[in-house]
């Protein structure tokens, strides 16, 4: 009996090792000629290109999150145009939902099953680049006209001196205001000269219109805060990103300003007053004077707001500062088809057709700027003051380039929520955040 059992277990063990073998093999097998490709950003730029005859048909896989719903049609049209121009390349597009996009992408890369090229945001971009899973495309970029795609937006996707992604699309944050409510309260519309104080004054006037009215709605979160502290001359990290400066006096002052609006004057709604609605939901109800949000709200607001609205550059305090979100396109570090994949992402990033299609579809703004595309963008209303979108680019502060930004964001958010709920004073919340960040995140490595 015992012997037989032993045999059974040995068989099982053999099976187990067989499966283990299967699992281990692809990781080693997949990149025999470029084993260092996973390791370093700057690895093996030429090798895969040699194996690629321009005549030979290649199929590349592209994974993205932004071509959802109506935009799928646009990107399919672009794919047809691209394939007509490059008859030897076939593109396979896969669009994943944003909510679990990075989970899926990460799993595929870790499972040595990475797509040849993919879309990624500026935030996670740093983590991916730091792990060396992005291809160094610096040497392929000679064809890009910096009059079309600005040098600064190309540089934004540099990591350790190497270009590892191309800018794809961008958006900024602006102040949207409900014109009808400003008329009702008999006060002047916001403009680019406004400061925090003007917001408070106008907010109180609109709040006075009724119990369920609010002056302004602005999320108090990490993403919002790093820009708002800059409006007050502060920052969340020191200049070379080696130290947290979360509880500096400027930052405490900033958070106090944001919390006062919620807890004291209540010109901004509390979490409970908002309930299950999000910021847009509250604003679209028509009882809120102003909202600080991203330009991707335009399509939805144009469709669903039954009041007049317009935009202006976000007011600052000591300085003006605005937020800039960028999406990039990267080639996978382990792909064998880097050349073809790069052609496709360059087409998406810099092509005139793509830029035009984006604007026509009301998608996020293309990073490539063409005069006729811009003209069309400005013509599309509401909002009337579309120029504010471009004006706000002058005050962009960029998000800190640290690999642990998403964890930093969560830690800080927890404390910010405690402050806006009145559970902690702004000083206490930022002190606690600073202490927690210092213990959890090591900025020196």
């Amino acid at each position, binding site marked *: 009996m015992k012997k037989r059992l032993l045999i*059974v277990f040995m068989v099982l063990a053999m099976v187990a090792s067989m499966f283990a073998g299967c699992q281990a093999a692809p990781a080693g097998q997949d990149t025999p000629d470029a084993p260092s490709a996973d390791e370093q950003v700057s690895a093996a730029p030429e090798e895969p290109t040699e194996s690629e005859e321009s005549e030979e048909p290649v199929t590349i896989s592209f994974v993205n999150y932004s071509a959802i719903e109506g935009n799928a049609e646009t990107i399919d049209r672009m794919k047809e145009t691209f394939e007509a121009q490059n008859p030897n390349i076939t593109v396979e597009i896969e669009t994943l939902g944003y909510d679990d996009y990075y989970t899926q992408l*990460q799993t595929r890369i870790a*499972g040595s099953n990475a797509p040849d090229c993919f879309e990624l945001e500026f935030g996670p971009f740093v983590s991916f680049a730091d792990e060396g899973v992005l291809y160094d495309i610096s040497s392929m970029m000679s064809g890009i006209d910096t009059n079309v795609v600005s040098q600064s937006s190309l540089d934004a996707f540099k990591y350790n001196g190497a270009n590892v992604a191309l800018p794809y699309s961008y958006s900024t944050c602006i102040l949207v205001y409900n014109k009808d409510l400003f008329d009702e309260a008999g006060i002047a519309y916001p403009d680019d000269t406004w400061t925090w104080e003007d917001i408070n004054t106008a907010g109180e006037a609109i709040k006075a219109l009724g119990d369920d009215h609010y002056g302004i709605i602005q999320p108090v979160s990490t993403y919002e805060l790093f820009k708002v502290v800059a409006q007050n001359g502060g920052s969340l990290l020191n200049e070379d990103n080696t130290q947290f400066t979360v509880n500096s006096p400027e930052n405490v002052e900033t958070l106090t300003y944001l919390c006062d609006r919620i807890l004291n004057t209540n010109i901004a709604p509390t979490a409970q007053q908002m309930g299950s609605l999000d910021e847009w939901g509250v604003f679209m109800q028509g009882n809120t004077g102003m909202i600080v949000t991203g330009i991707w709200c335009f399509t939805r607001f144009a469709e669903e707001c039954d009041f007049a609205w317009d935009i202006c550059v976000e007011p600052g305090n000591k300085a003006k500062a605005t937020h800039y979100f960028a999406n990039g396109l990267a080639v996978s570090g382990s792909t064998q088809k880097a050349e073809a994949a790069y052609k496709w992402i360059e087409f998406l990033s810099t092509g005139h057709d793509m830029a035009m299609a984006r604007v026509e579809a009301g998608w996020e703004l293309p990073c490539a700027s063409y005069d006729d595309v811009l003209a069309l963008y400005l013509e599309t209303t509401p909002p009337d003051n579309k120029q504010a979108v471009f004006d706000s680019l002058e005050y962009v502060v960029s998000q800190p380039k640290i690999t642990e930004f998403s964890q930093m964001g969560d830690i800080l958010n927890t404390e910010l929520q405690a402050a806006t709920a009145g559970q902690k004073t702004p000083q206490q919340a930022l002190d606690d955040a600073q202490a927690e960040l210092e213990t959890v995140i090591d900025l020196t490595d």
Partner: protein
Amino acid sequence: MKNKNSKGLLTALPFLMPSIGGFLLISLIPILFSLALSLTSYSGLKGLDIFSAEFWQQNFVGFENYQKIFSGSEFWDSLLHIGYFIILYIPLMLASSLGIATLLNKPRKGSVFFRVLFYIPVLTSWVAGAIIWRWVLDPQYGVLNDLLAKVGIQGPGWLQDGNWAMVGIVLASVWKDMGFYGLIFLGGLKNINPEYYEAAQMDGAGKTQKFFKITMPLLSPIIYFALVLSLINAFMIFAQVMIMTGGGPYGSTEVIVERIYNYAFHYHKMGYASALSWILFAIVFVLTFIQQKAQKKWVNYDA
């Protein structure tokens, strides 16, 4: 006898292969991998080459992950939150599912319909359920606070209030699970021989006496089963937290699995997440072990 038995095993093995293979491939091997990973600083972003010496040279950190978990406050806080959840959830769940079972046990018109009705939440996906509950618990427009206002109670901010968010999650979880446990209890009730009740009736026992002296003891194996299952599930709550609160407000509903998910897929610390899941495993294992030992004192298998 001896021979026959082992022969049976060998004969059975080929037939078991598909499921054993699946178990090894998608459960056991990844589980062992995660144990190895819990000793590393692996990010989860790169291809995993767990058998190469290089991988271990670069990533091996010993027990640093475990040490970090135990020395930080985050883990203990999330345990505390789960403790709070359990204290509220288990009594409520047991009471409501026992209640349902007793109601459905009496032959009535339409009891099959009600059985289905109570079971529907079990079949509903957590995503849909959690979104419904987010709406039900809305402080201003929610159904629950509306009802409370009708009887003169000013309802709390539920999911937007750190003191009440976990209570909201408990309510949703009870709603979701009571049909399942109710059905199990119903099975248990149907198994109790009605003669016991008749005998008790003759001896002049009242309703409560019958419940505590007959129903409860004879149902104890089922209650035990429900307790073990719900305790294990309580430690693994995730979907409802993720969708209803995302761990907020101000971290008041952060729980272990939510932390594991965030560490693995948002913070890119797969090693740390693996260590956290092994600690969770240890907790669940020890608790089940204790319950297994303690059940002898009160579970009655004589029925």
